[in-house]
């Protein structure tokens, strides 16, 4: 479903080159739920932006659902859902309901399908109480649920999430985790999730990838991950050891 082959992206910053991602290769099969970890500045967001075609890779190839994102961006958009936790993709000045209606037209979802999906999402994400409120007036948790719904109205095969639980309280977090788990289990949606909250990883992801300095430092199951430090039982400790360990490489 997602395929990276020696993909790289560098940025020119005042004459020097910053390699945000380099020589990154991995494959994610349909239906997988993958956690994507890495310290700040490791290149997670950059990878995600390449996956949805926002950034053109400077080397290597990227394929999502068989398409090259930067060339077939608008075609791919129908098959992929994206949520940026730090920034909404909704229209700031419009009520949530209007945003959804616009999305229906942009993605050409027919009216009946849209109604069913929206009703379902409204119930599972509990949007009912604020669906008429302009996005700028929503609280962070409300907005995040709105963003999630917006990313799923066209029933994408792949969902990529960049820190979707950032800044949420324990109850909202649990709600969103639950929702994602069911989405993956019931619909078979492929999910790639970046987060700094290891609780997300423990509860959701069968597979974990860890990236540092733009390169893959670990790829395996959650069990494999814990096995890298047999003397530790706390995932925080395990991961922080990997971060500092590979940081010197």
């Amino acid at each position, binding site marked *: 479903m997602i395929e990276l082959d020696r993909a790289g992206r560098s940025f020119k910053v005042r004459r020097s080159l910053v390699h945000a991602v380099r020589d990154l290769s991995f494959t994610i099969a349909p239906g997988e739920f993958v956690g994507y970890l890495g310290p700040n500045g490791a290149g997670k967001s950059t990878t995600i*932006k390449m996956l*949805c075609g926002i*950034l053109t890779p400077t080397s290597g190839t990227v394929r999502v659902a068989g398409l090259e994102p930067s060339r077939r961006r608008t075609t791919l*958009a*129908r098959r992929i859902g994206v949520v940026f936790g730090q*920034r909404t*993709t909704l*229209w700031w*000045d419009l009520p949530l309901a209007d945003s959804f209606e*616009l999305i229906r037209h942009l993605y050409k979802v027919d009216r009946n399908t849209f109604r069913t999906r929206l009703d379902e999402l409204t119930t599972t994400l509990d949007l009912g109480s604020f669906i008429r409120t302009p996005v700028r007036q929503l609280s962070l948790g409300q907005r995040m649920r709105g963003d999630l719904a917006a990313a799923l109205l066209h029933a994408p095969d792949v969902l990529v999430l960049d820190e979707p639980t950032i800044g949420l309280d324990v109850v909202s977090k649990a709600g969103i985790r639950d929702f994602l788990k069911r989405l993956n289990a019931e619909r078979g949606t492929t999910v790639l999730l970046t987060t700094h909250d290891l609780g997300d990883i423990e509860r959701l992801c069968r597979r974990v990838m860890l990236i540092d300095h733009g390169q893959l430092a670990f790829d395996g199951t959650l069990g494999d991950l814990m096995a890298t430090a047999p003397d530790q039982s706390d995932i925080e400790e395990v991961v922080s050891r990997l971060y500092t360990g590979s940081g010197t490489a």
Partner: protein
Amino acid sequence: MVSLYARLAWTWTRAAAAYPASFALMTVLGIITTTLDVAVILIVFANTTTLAGFSRDEVLFLYGAAGVSFALCDLLVSNIDRVSQHIKAGTFDTFLIRPVSSWLQLTTDRFNPNRLGRVLQAVLVLGYAVAVLDLEGRRLWMIPVMVVTGFVIFAALWTLVGAAQFLLTDAPELGNAFTYGGQQLTQYPLAVYARDLVKGVTYVLPMAFVNWQPGLYVLGRDDPFGTPEFMRFLGPAAALALVLAAGLAWRQGIRHYRSTGS
């Protein structure tokens, strides 16, 4: 594409309708601003009967024709010059995750129908000029052609300016020299300008095809700079060339887009 444009524009119109007073005020002010341009022309002609060999009504005709094109573009396309604003605010990513061309989304972004007033004003001036000028009937077909051509040229120009902002993110106002400069240039017969300048806006940036070359045909006049007759009909070809250039530039701009760090 048109229906999608209408849908997006309509959504923003409804958002704008939440502030009716502001909407009315901006509409009126838009009309006043453009009317002052007409006032300047009228004042000039209060002092003279011809300017570079053109009468007041002929100048109003050229002004009106370019005015309609420009005002339509201002209404429908000009939002694209907020590329750099979006890049700096980090909101540009959003345009790239939708299954619709980013160009369409940007041109409708915060669409505000209050600019419609300017279109009406320009239509009135053009209508007046056509009514009083006693034009040859067989040449009138060119008027709608030139308005559309002008619209396309301005739209392409605006797109180029928007595309340039991917590179010149910190100096978005540089583009105004082309868009608003183009508007200013086309308000008067090009006969008032220097030959080299006119050559530039004929063969390099084809502003002369907005209203000047086709306008000469409608008015049944020769070009004071002596360009051959067939040039009067090259507008659509020039517009097409500019559209291709603009499309390429936009595409390149998107490819070079680097998003923001967070």
